[in-house]
């Protein structure tokens, strides 16, 4: 039993499990005096040091992603100029950065890219920007689709649930990553004139569409299960008997109770979406040269890891930090919503 249900308690007639969780009961009694669930969640979250730090880290990534153009302006480099080509002394005869540690200098903070000789720092900034924004859009879209389908199936049950379930099964049975790879060229070739460069926004849209088209099922299943378990609960029944419309019940009664699984799933999905985008770029159907992309940096870095491990260093560390922070943040968000399952 999750605590959002108990928070509902004040306005629902049945609260059978209060006594079984005395700590909760004790705390509820205070909550009921004043603060809203949101404030409580925020209060609890604020006290979770790991959560706050992870949130700061994640926020930091989003901020630098958003401010990439600004930062690069101040820094005085951009991710497209081939510095190594304009200044041949930057690359050695193997087209690797000539300077030590991947060519890190006061001028090129994170070194320069092998072969083409672009600036790694701005490349990473813009790469994070590309990946994050694409992943965010895709994850939001697949979350929305998943929640809607899950709610519809779980709440209405019967035939619609059956068919939605079958559709979900169908998509689950698809070898996803294979389909990403197979579908991407189709989308890009169908929508772009044969003699024009595929614009980056078309690729972005294609990636978002493909990923969310094939990525909503876990969310839908989760929400369906949660909705099913909630549907027959007394407070829903009560709302139904009191004549509330299905939409109202979904919105007012069901939705607040599935926020936790949705948020937790969202925080799980976002990093994995970033990794899926990286996968697409890795096999050459996602972003292509010269778009700076986090995932593509891995593909490049993996190619030169032995000669120039420093190129991989910053994207790699950044990725690990980001994914870890995001996962910890997910835990904290869940704890804040539902202290029982936390640490």
């Amino acid at each position: 039993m999750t605590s959002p249900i108990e928070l509902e308690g004040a306005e629902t007639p049945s609260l059978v499990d209060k006594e079984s969780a005395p700590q909760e009961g004790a705390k509820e009694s205070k909550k009921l005096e004043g603060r809203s669930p949101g404030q409580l969640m925020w209060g609890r979250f604020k006290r979770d040091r790991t959560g706050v730090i992870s949130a700061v880290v994640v926020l930091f990534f989003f901020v630098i992603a958003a401010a990439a153009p600004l930062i690069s302006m101040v820094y005085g480099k951009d991710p497209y100029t081939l510095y190594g080509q304009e200044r041949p002394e930057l690359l050695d005869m193997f087209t690797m950065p000539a300077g030590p540690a991947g060519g890190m200098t006061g001028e090129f903070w994170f070194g320069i890219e092998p072969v083409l000789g672009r600036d790694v720092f701005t490349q990473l900034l813009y790469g994070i920007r590309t990946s994050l924004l694409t992943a965010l859009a895709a994850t939001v879209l697949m979350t929305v689709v998943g929640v809607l389908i899950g709610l519809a199936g779980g709440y209405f049950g019967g035939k619609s649930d059956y068919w939605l379930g079958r559709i979900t099964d169908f998509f689950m049975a698809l070898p996803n990553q294979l389909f990403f790879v197979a579908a991407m060229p189709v989308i890009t070739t169908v929508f772009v004139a044969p003699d024009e460069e595929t614009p980056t926004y078309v690729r972005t849209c294609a990636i978002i569409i493909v990923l969310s088209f094939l990525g909503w099922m876990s969310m839908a299943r989760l929400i369906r299960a949660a909705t099913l378990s909630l549907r027959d609960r007394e407070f829903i029944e009560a709302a139904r008997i009191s004549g509330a419309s299905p939409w109202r019940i979904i919105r007012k009664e069901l939705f607040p109770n599935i926020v936790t699984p949705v948020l937790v799933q969202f925080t799980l999905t976002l990093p994995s979406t970033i990794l899926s985008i990286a996968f697409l770029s890795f096999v050459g159907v996602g972003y292509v040269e010269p778009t700076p992309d986090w995932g593509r940096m891995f593909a490049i870095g993996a190619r030169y890891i032995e000669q120039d491990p420093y190129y991989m260093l910053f994207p790699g560390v950044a990725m690990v930090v980001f994914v870890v922070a995001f996962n910890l943040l997910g835990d904290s968000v869940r704890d804040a919503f539902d202290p029982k399952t936390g640490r």
Partner: protein
Amino acid sequence: MTTQTKPEEAAATAAERAFLSVRDLKVHFSTEDGVVKAVDGLSFDLERGKTLGIVGESGSGKSVTNLAVLGLHNRKTTAIDGSITLDGQELTDAGEKQLETLRGKKMAMIFQDALTALSPYYTVGRQIGEPFMKHTGASKRDARVRAIDLLEKVGIPHPQQRVDDYPHQFSGGMRQRAMIAMALACDPDLLIADEPTTALDVTVQAQILDLLKDLQQEFGSAIIMITHDLGVVANMADDILVMYAGRAVERGTVREVLKAPQHPYTWGLLGSMPRLTSDVDEPLVPIPGSPPSLLNPPSGCAFHPRCGFKEEVPGGRCSSERPLLAPGRAAACHLTGDQRQQLFIETIQPRLG
């Protein structure tokens, strides 16, 4: 029956000393929001063969008390102070291993909702037999025989077949009976029943209570009956303890407390209970306000923010000074005995009808 001697034993000792004795028990949880004083200085005694009813609203500390007796509180976040002695043995400082040998054998618990308290993954028979095997070293087959025995005793038809059923194949009442059978597996001396009938409908409720009474007579166990339903207490208990905000506010025999309650909170409880004899048009009178926060309980008498009689006490003592509960038949209230009697007779009793 393997422990035929027990009832006589119990009968012999019950008169001499309390079987369970709780003294100045404090159970404090540390949570992220601060320290919750779930139980704060509780004392009571219980003899063998007797039933103590603990009554109170949600969050008044009655369930916590019993979890503390069983040692099932979270040891990392809970601080326990005071003493709990069971059959002369101190429980608050007992080790986990020691408690394990006591739980199920000397003291057992009947949970409120058998649906959640029985594991869905194992058969009823197995769950009943498990403690028997553990405490008596019986074989699997003996445990099964024992389970069938117990199921029969608690009134499950065709126990031979039902013993291999899973809890979800039982009806609500049957599940509760199975739950009771599980608690009785080793003929415990102390039975804690945490709202054993709340989740059941009224006819089944009565059956279960009758069952408990019968069993108590047969085994001579002491029972703690936790409930917020005064009707159940009236039916079952010998003594009553009324709890509010982690403390006992009134104590006495069933007759004393129900016929002549002394604490305004008890009055409130009685007033909010429907009676067959009362006029249909007469509204129930709920206690105004909601239970206090245990993180930050009200000063003085914890009940004073909801109490309708605090003006009767001069000098605002209700909000500044905490009333104490005297031993024996008593109530923790600043009202004098006369005031209580007068108020009860003049304002409360007419309402109760």
